[in-house]
């Protein structure tokens, strides 16, 4: 399983600080952080520890099997963010 971040994320970075395996991106300071509309969890790295759920002030993080229907799209969206080359890499390639 994995945890996923829904579109109600406000980019408060409490989850990034809480994550023990550093699987929540983009991180503050990363080139694509400012343009990102939300943060995403890498499903291949997530260890299902629940720390981000505890840290999130707006309850935007869910265990995949508990994701409400209206946020069901988030599972695919979080994975898609990591599946494609990061914006940062593409920006460098285009420069």
């Amino acid at each position: 399983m994995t945890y996923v971040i829904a579109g109600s994320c406000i980019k408060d970075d409490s989850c990034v600080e809480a994550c023990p395996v550093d699987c929540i991106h983009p991180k503050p300071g990363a080139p694509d952080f400012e343009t990102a509309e939300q943060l995403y969890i890498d499903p291949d790295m997530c260890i299902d520890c629940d720390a981000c759920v505890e840290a999130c002030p707006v309850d935007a993080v869910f265990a995949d099997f508990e994701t409400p229907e209206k946020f069901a799209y988030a599972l695919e969206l979080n994975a898609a963010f990591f599946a494609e080359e990061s914006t940062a890499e593409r920006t460098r390639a285009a420069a």
Partner: protein
Amino acid sequence: MSRETARIAVVGAGPAGAFAADRLLRARGDVEIDLFERLPTPWGLLRAGVAPDHQEIKRLDETFHRQTLERGCRLFANVEVGVDLSHEELMRHYTAVVYATGAQTDKSLGIPGEELPGSWPATEFVAWYNGHPDYRDLEFDLSGRRAVVIGNGNVAADVTRMLTLDPDELARTDVADHALEALRESRIEEVVVLGRRGPAQAAFTSAELRELGRLGGVELRVSPEDVELDPLSERWLAERGTFTARTNVALLREFAGRAPRTDTTRRIVLRFLSSPLELRGDERVEAIDIGRNEIVESGDGSLRPRAAGDDVETIECGLVLRSVGYRAVPLPGVPFDERSFILPNDSGRVRAPDGKPLLGVYAVGWIKRGPTGILGTNKRDAEETARCLAEDLDSGSLPVPEHPGRDGIDALLAERKPELVTVDGWRAIDALELRTGKEQERPRVKLSSREELLAAARR
């Protein structure tokens, strides 16, 4: 510097002010913070901006409360700095003053007819449905069949949703009662959303765009021609586009491919590459003229819209909401950058007109960086301002104010503002609103007039 406790006034108890107080307490646990707020209630746009159907985000108020008021920050609400108290007076009572007053007005379109009745800044509609005391008495005419929303950002998306959401769904939120009543009577069947630029440049977050496509009983229409990208946008999207821009274009293509529906009562139409040229009407708005744009590359490589041809399309409508950006207003007694509409500052340290730092004066949030970013952006912004302020305290560069203790400001407020709302008053308002909400199976029922709010605060 004496061993006197440094006392800090944060002006504006919205998200930027709340994050600033929190970050200051983390950076320097020994400071005393007073939060000044113009309204009788704290948390700014979290209460009066975030849409009522986004209740999960409003939950941030619990964090703000815990991180500020429960850690000893005092709340001085219903006090307007610049009116009830001057900047100079604050400087006489505090070691530092942090302005977190946001961007309180909207940008105009600068087209003929903009001032006709029926044409509004979207921000006033937002404040109205969220029960902001200064806007509760506005009367929006929702008797026409069509409304036009100008702009492609999240405020545009919010007002579009509010105009089309099923009122029964809205009734389960903390929308202001007067707005719910008016929206129940609304005869609006179609909301046309105009974007100057193309689908690849739309400023919506993909979350907001996705929501527009899945409202119960609402059809979302995007024409297939409108989502065909021009070669410049196509290339930009592939090479430099953000994850959000690519997600948006994919969503819009999906919407454009949907079969037309006949089972819905309301419709949202997204139109791209369309600029408003003029609002028409004798007594009030009756129609809007729209011109067509194309995407061109600027000298700096960025893509922008340019008028394409002279064709003008006229759309009949009874309501126009414009959402093309916010703008801050100058604060009496404080320098203001008239071009960028911010307090001139270096990382949050406000600069005097001679370019030197204005000792003890700081900025945070939209009044510091302009109206950009989302809620959480203010946390990093506040971190930066708090770090500067803590450095200045540590280095002893801030002078001790004339009246360094609490007594002076407390006496001044007692004299100037007998109707001051403190943390106890706010707790009473909050408890009453939540209790009424519970009775009506809603998250909260807002009090929206100053009289009601002040009466609740006195209990």
